[in-house]
Every structure is written in C-alpha cells, then in structure tokens.
C-alpha cells in the first residue's frame, strides 16, 4: 500500500506533461507526443544522440559524449534532461495547453 501511495503522490506533485520537445543547438528540432513510445535519433554537433520515449517517460539512452551524464540522468516524467557536449535539450512541457508563453 505504501508504494501505491508514494506513486500517486508523485503523480500529483508533478503534473504529467503532454509533449516532448527536443532542442538542438538552442533550436526546437522535434515536438512529439509523450504517449507514443518511440526512439528518436537526433544529430548534434558531435554525433547522434538517441532519445527514448516509453510509457510516458523520457530518457537519453545513447550519446556520443564522453561523460555520459545525460544517460546517467535516467528517466524523467517532467522537467528536462540535457546533453551539453552534443548541445541537446529534451523538455517535457507541463499541461498548460494552449498557452504560448508565461509571464512571471
């Protein structure tokens, strides 16, 4: 029971996003739904990074960088994961749909 409580709490605290945005060199390269599982091969300045979307989670599963910090970051369900050496930013957009920008 305890683990179920913990899980539902996490769900509530981190409202699930709906979209995965992938930026390369500060530019938006892909916008993908979070609920469709797939692997995306993204070309950055030092090679190809593989981003995996699965069961509403996202991770960087392979990267040409040396430190592999991005892979160690593991799965995310909100927020972002970055690979600085390959200039890749993966962002899960939280559920404020239809909003173009936020002031504050």
């Amino acid at each position: 029971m305890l683990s179920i409580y913990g899980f539902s709490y996490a769900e509530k605290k981190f409202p699930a996003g709906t979209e995965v945005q992938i930026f390369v060199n500060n530019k938006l390269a892909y916008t993908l739904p979070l609920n469709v599982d797939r692997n995306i091969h993204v070309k950055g300045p030092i090679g190809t990074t593989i981003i995996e979307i699965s069961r509403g989670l996202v991770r960087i599963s392979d990267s040409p960088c040396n430190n592999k910090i991005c892979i160690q970051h593991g799965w995310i369900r909100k927020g972002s994961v970055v690979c600085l050496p390959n200039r890749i930013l993966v962002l899960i957009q939280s559920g404020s749909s239809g909003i173009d920008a936020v002031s504050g």
Partner: protein
Amino acid sequence: MDTLITLTLVTDSEELAEAASSAAFKEIDRLHLLWDFFTDTSELSRLNKSSGLKPMKVSDDTINLIEKALLVSHKSKGAFDITTGPINELWDFHKMIVPSEAAVKEHLGLVNYRLIEIDKDKSTVFLKKKGMKIDLGGIAKGYAAARLTKIIIDSGIKSGIVAVGGDIRTFGMRPQNKLWRIGIKNPRLDENTSEIMAAVSLTDRSISTSGDYERFFIVGSRRYHHIIDPRTGYPSEKTISATVINDDSTTADALATAVFILGPEKGIELLNSFSSEGVIMDIAGKIHTTDGIKDKIEYIYR
C-alpha cells in the same frame, strides 16, 4: 543577461527564422555589454563610477532607457527608482544576508532619481551625488524585449513572441489568425495547483510580471525578496505578484515593479495614468484588476 530568452517566430522560411534569431541574439549580447551591473567595463559601470564627478557621454539606448525609467519614477513618486544600486548591493539573496538597519539608512541617502541629470543634446548623463549607482534590473529586460522585437520585425518576420524572462512582447497574429495566449505564473505553486493562475489573449502589446517568488529567502515567518522599496530600502510587503500590460515593453517592465511596490490601490491609479492594464495579487492572495481587463482574464486557478 542572466535570464532565459525564448523567441517564437512564425514564418515558412527556415532561413528567415535563422537570420532573425541570430540578429536578435547579437543584440542581446550588445545590450548585456552596455548594462551589466557586475562587469566593470560596461557602460553602466563606468557611468556609476563617474557619479559625483562629471557628466558622462553614453549611448542612445542608455539615454532612452533612463528617460523611460524617470517617467515611471516621477509618476509613481519614487516607488520605482533605478538608483537603488547601493541598496541592492547590501542584500544577498544567495547567501541570505539581511543588511543592518544602519547600513540601509546610510545608503538610502544615495537613492534618488531626481539626482539623475540627462543632457540629450550632448548625450550625457550625470549622477549628481558621489556613490550613486544605477541598477537597471527592473527595466532592462523590458527594453531588451522591445529591441529584439524590432530587430526580428526588421528581418522580415511578421508575427511571434519575444520572451526575455517574464517580460514578453507579442506581435502579429498567431497562426489561424488568433491572438497570442499568455499565461500569468501562479506565484504560490504547489502540488495541487497549476503552473499558471490566469491567461490573457493579446497581440502587439507587452506583458511583464514582478513577483516575490523570483529571488527570495525566508527567515522566521518573513519573506525577504528582491523587489526593494526605494523609499525604505526593504522588500515591499503589499503584493505577491503584479502583472502589467502596456503598449511599450520597457514601460511595462518598470510599471510591474512600481505597481508591486505600491500595492493594488495606488498601483491601479498609476496604471490608469499610463493607460495600462494590470492584474495584481495582494499580500492576502486577493486579485485586483484594472477595469479595462476585468472581463478579459481567464482564471485558471485563484
């Protein structure tokens, strides 16, 4: 500038988007070199060092910015004041340092926008008292949003959004001929609330928000945040969040700070004198708006 800049550009030409955004980012670098408070060689730092000595020749951007700042200072009777540099330096929101009362009192004597003298013919600015320091933190991002927008439009882009942190400029129509829909951040975010508290639809206008949640620390039950009342030297405690909509980005940014410091009642009077709209959450969490926007706000959480 120490902030996230997001450009939304609507065009079917990737080349055009690329050219416009790289021109915009070049402009940000230029403004940063002019106005960084912490870089000794910035024009602003040199101006501050010349305080009490002699007028200094400055760029047109600096003259324009200071003029707009002074208008808001004048109309708000000093609730907005760019000469708070000496007081801002006493506060450290990273190390959670509350300055001594004596230090605040001493430095408050250096805070006075009336001691800024502009000579437009000679392009000079004179800070008349030694030790005076201008800090453009409450207005430079709005100016940057305006400049970036101009550069992007000059590059041939007809619609988009320039967001310099929370200072947002909208221009042209969103695809499908719609207005841009801009959210106002929920100032007290927790697990049960949404990221934004309200939304407004607009275009060719600017929207800026000042909130007590941007940089702060809490000691006991008191929240010390970065929006310092120039008249007291301490954080203003009337407001949680102040959002301003104005035709001009620079003015919107300065007004958001002024309204935050004044609180809802005097803040709305100030907004009316600028034909500006606003949404203010007072310290008790109650929302106040100008009449012109009352029916146009969609509340997402309140």
